[in-house]
């Protein structure tokens, strides 16, 4: 870890973090404010007007009847994945591959900071930004719901769901980071490092449209965000989360090792 480099990363990327946090927050606010224990039924009646496949793809097929279920289905089927995913894939490329592509990596490496330290710092920044986005938005959600519906949000199951969601995103981030470390130009880094995570997202959506397409869920890490299962059994979510954490560490670690060993044309 190198503090100077971390702060430079923050200065260069805080706008992206802020932007993603704010867009995410709009949905957080509406999810809580739209929640009305009495009108859930009405809302579900309204949803019967929409094609079933579309509702499923957007995660609106079953709106929970309590605040947890409602918020979770509203946010964690789509919103809480797609916006942080944008941050993850844009920044993964910027942290390593773009510096190698442009040549500015030469300046980072003509200092006493080792390649491993440079890469580890970039990896830590990548994950920190993601966690920051969630901290901001979960914080707002928890505060808002305790103000509007005191005692309604079951924290343990809600946090378990967030843990799994964040960890699926660090797996996606690890893939982005790995390709950022492997590729010598932004073009290839983005093709794979953004392409694969986006494909995960698309596969998850497709798998939920129709029972016939359900098989696609095995092609996506995001299918592991099984909202109802995790809310019912937070310990299960914790287990899934820790496995994903292990996978993430392997992916980021592989990126660091490859970057340390590779021959750079800078």
């Amino acid at each position, binding site marked *: 870890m190198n503090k*100077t480099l971390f702060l430079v990363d923050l200065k260069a990327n805080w706008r992206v973090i802020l932007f993603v946090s704010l867009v995410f927050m709009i949905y957080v606010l509406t999810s809580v404010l739209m929640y009305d224990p009495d009108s859930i039924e009405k809302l579900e009646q309204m949803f019967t007007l929409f094609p079933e496949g579309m509702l499923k793809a957007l995660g609106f097929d079953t709106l929970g009847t309590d605040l947890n279920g409602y918020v979770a289905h509203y946010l964690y089927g789509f919103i809480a994945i797609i916006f942080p995913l944008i941050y993850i894939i844009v920044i993964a490329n910027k942290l390593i591959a773009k510096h190698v592509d442009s040549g500015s990596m*030469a*300046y980072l490496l003509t*200092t*006493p900071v*080792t390649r491993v330290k440079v890469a580890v710092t970039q990896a830590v920044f990548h994950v920190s930004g993601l966690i920051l986005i969630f901290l901001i938005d979960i914080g707002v959600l928890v505060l808002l719901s305790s103000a509007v519906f005191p005692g309604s949000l079951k924290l343990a199951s809600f946090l378990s769901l967030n843990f799994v969601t964040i960890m699926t995103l660090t797996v996606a981030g690890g893939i982005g980071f790995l390709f950022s470390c492997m590729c010598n130009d932004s073009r290839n880094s983005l093709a794979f490092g953004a392409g694969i995570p986006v494909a995960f997202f698309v596969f998850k959506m497709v798998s939920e449209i129709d029972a016939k397409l359900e098989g696609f869920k095995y092609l996506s890490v995001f299918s592991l965000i099984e909202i109802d299962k995790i809310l019912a059994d937070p310990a299960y979510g914790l287990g899934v989360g820790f496995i994903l954490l292990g996978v993430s560490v392997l992916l980021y670690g592989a990126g660091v090792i490859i970057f340390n060993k590779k*021959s*750079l044309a800078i």
Partner: protein
Amino acid sequence: MIEVSNLTQVYRSGKGVFNLDFSIPEGEIFGYLGPNGAGKTTTIRNLLGFANADGGYARINGLDCRKDAARLQPMIGYLPGETAFLEDMTGAEFLKFMSDMRGTGDTGRRDSLTERFALDPRGKIKKMSKGMKQKLAIITAFMHDPAVYILDEPTAGLDPFMQNVFLDLLEEERGRGKTVMMSSHIFEEVQRSCDRAGIIREGRLVAVEDIEALNDAKSRTYAVTFADPADLGKLDGLQFRRISSNRVEITVGHDYRSFFQTLAHCSVVGLYSSEQSLEDVFMKYYGRNGGTDE
């Protein structure tokens, strides 16, 4: 002290560097000459520890350039051939960033260099001209007072006045016992500032010579136009090549006396000195010593 031994790195294109062998003792300015694409930058990538060699090694002050790269960096001042700074920083922010990364606290040398090169570092790097960026790159390479300088075409983009400021600075650093490796494709620059020069062509080091010896071998070519084509018959004592019926290219080594004496008897209406390209100089140099006289 820079040591390159049997260094080989081959790219997929088949280009690269092959079995490079040279060393630069402390206190020497070594010019590294070659046309674009000859392998200058590849050599430098190995000296900085960026690239993995396929064979051989590069060492600076006894440390392996690749394995001990991070330990070596405080001793090295590097100026990249194509400078790419960090986005969105001002010049001053970038200099501070590099100082912080290097852990050098002293800002005196940075400030005196900034003044010397008349750089206003307050503007955004993105908005800087090529010359300003080059100044910034020079200050970055020199400000931590390293023992060894590795400079990839350091005067590119500088106006003639600033080129002089830079070459004076280089002279001073030599006086302070620094080791310098400087790549260039401009012969005059190397001739002026270097003690020795290595010449690389198509990835192979074709010669390492004292600048003195190169100067002796150096000759100049003049394009001469005559009013009377018959004058061409009077040029027997000179080395010349006919371009058209009344125009020749005369190559002069040291013997300017016979050059002027001969021309004095001719109806010269035009005389142009053509800058010798590096390639010309070495073709001639090797022509004389290697027996492949054209």
